[in-house]
């Protein structure tokens, strides 16, 4: 299995107005993901624990690209861009805490499945689907 492991490091998309796709499983371990322009799509799942997402205005971090990653721990971030859940399923196991400022985390489709805790602001713009713990069994 080929995968991309990021531990306490910075993954950045600094240029390009199009979409950059991470097409291998991506495991983020308390690292920072920065999108300065265009879209960065984490499109091949993976197992991640905590992270910071910094997304500039007009830029997008696509958390799934239609895939089904597992996230745990705490995720937060900054910027006037978008952290997008628009397809696929984010499995939150054993639990994931979202702590984003207003407007950053936008839920426009896809599933959150497991135990999700929100201590910041989550914005729903279309059909947001919530699964339960039994999905994970």
């Amino acid at each position, binding site marked *: 299995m080929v995968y991309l492991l990021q531990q306490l490091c910075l993954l950045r998309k600094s240029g390009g107005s199009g979409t950059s796709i991470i097409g291998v499983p991506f495991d983020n371990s308390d690292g920072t993901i920065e999108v300065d322009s265009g879209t960065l799509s984490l499109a091949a799942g993976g197992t991640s624990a905590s992270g910071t997402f910094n997304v500039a205005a007009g830029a997008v971090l696509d958390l799934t690209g239609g895939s089904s990653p597992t996230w745990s721990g705490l995720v937060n971030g900054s910027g006037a861009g978008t952290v997008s859940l628009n397809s696929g399923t984010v499995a939150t196991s054993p639990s994931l805490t979202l702590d984003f400022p207003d407007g950053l985390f936008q839920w426009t489709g896809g599933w959150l499945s497991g135990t*999700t805790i929100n201590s910041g602001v989550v914005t729903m713009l279309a059909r947001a689907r919530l699964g339960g713990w039994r999905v994970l069994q």
Partner: protein
Amino acid sequence: MAGGFYNSGLVRQTNAATLDIGVNYAHFENQAGGTYDLEGDGSIMNAPAYYTSFNNYGLLRKSAGSGTSTISAPLNNLNGSIEVDSGTLSLADSGSSSNGTFTVAAGAVLDLTGGSSSTWAGQVTAVAQASCR
């Protein structure tokens, strides 16, 4: 802590967006201090799942939209507050509730049943220009 979504911050459900509690046993908990804001005429549904619920310990608010937002998943209001600033908020899929505060602006409606059969206990308090039915 069982699975589900636990909100102690702010969830903004904008325009016609919907929340679908779409799997058996899934539930949404709006915790004390949390706000769930319907900023339009979107709804909360659970079809076709069973044993789902929306549990409100905090503030459930419909802040915008002149139409009807329907909660068609069982709503358990557990000492929470329900506020309707405009349009109609319909609690249309039963539930078992105890205590609560209802604040309904002039011209707005909180429909307690939407034709369903809910169970309430304790004390409920309506504030200001209420139009409850």
